[in-house]
């Protein structure tokens, strides 16, 4: 019962934050909404006995990614002109139809092959502690883990390249 109450509270927070993120005109409010959704999802990970993933969620998403977002918002300024400009006629109606239809499709498809494991909820036979996760991560998935190291290095190099070689573009444009 306690689990259900925690789930309802944080699922509500996640949904409200997510809707607020989409609807807020000011990007800073959107960032705060995303932060709320990420923290709620971290709480739900704890509810699912995935303690290490919850910690990583808070550190990586709520920490690093949100800091980066807020930093970029600060850098390029809050630009809330035409937050939802009508580029396509009836864009809002189409968006509502597409997203609600997608939700219904996912739920209907899920009902056809609904995941039913053998374990009732609340009997933790799988603890996502750092030990269990890293046994799997460094045992079976070592090569994949090392390739993510390469991916992050390439991402950092790409960011540096974008920062260096993006500067002289306006001059080229001026000569055209």
């Amino acid at each position, binding site marked *: 019962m306690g689990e259900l109450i925690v789930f309802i509270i944080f699922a509500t927070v996640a949904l409200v934050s997510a809707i607020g993120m989409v609807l807020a005109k000011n990007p800073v409010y959107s960032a705060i909404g995303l932060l709320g959704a990420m923290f709620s999802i971290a709480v739900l990970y704890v509810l699912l006995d995935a303690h290490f993933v919850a910690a990583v969620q808070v550190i990586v998403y709520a920490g690093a990614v949100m800091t980066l977002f807020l930093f970029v918002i600060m850098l390029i300024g809050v630009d809330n002109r035409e937050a939802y400009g009508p580029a396509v006629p009836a864009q809002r109606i189409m968006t509502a139809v597409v997203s609600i239809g997608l939700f219904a499709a996912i739920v209907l498809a899920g009902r056809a092959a609904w995941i039913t494991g053998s374990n009732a909820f609340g009997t933790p036979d799988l603890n996502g502690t750092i030990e269990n996760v890293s046994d799997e991560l460094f045992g079976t998935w070592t090569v994949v883990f090392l390739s993510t190291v390469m991916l992050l290095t390439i*991402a950092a190099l790409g960011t540096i390249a974008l920062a260096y070689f993006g500067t002289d573009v306006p001059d080229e444009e001026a000569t055209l």
Partner: protein
Amino acid sequence: MTLTISWFLILAAALFSIGVAGVLIRRNALVMFMSIELMLNSVNLTFVAVSRELGLIEGQVAALFVMVVAAAEVTIGLAIIVAVFRRKASANVDELAELRG
């Protein structure tokens, strides 16, 4: 009423749909990017929930890999947004129409 896995899956589907709506309705590149992050998060929630239900730790490992890819994607994406902003002085995706034929 007990908490079952389907509650988590329905919540994840709802968050994913909200993210899709955000990408479709918003014109600010930063907010579109945040919506993409929300979709990645909801998929992670599905992974972890199913991992819990089936008793397989691989779902949590997959969630960790998704987080790594999302971090790399945020790095590159925000760098692209800043580079576009330096060129166009705007984060509005409707103003990026140079490739229009």
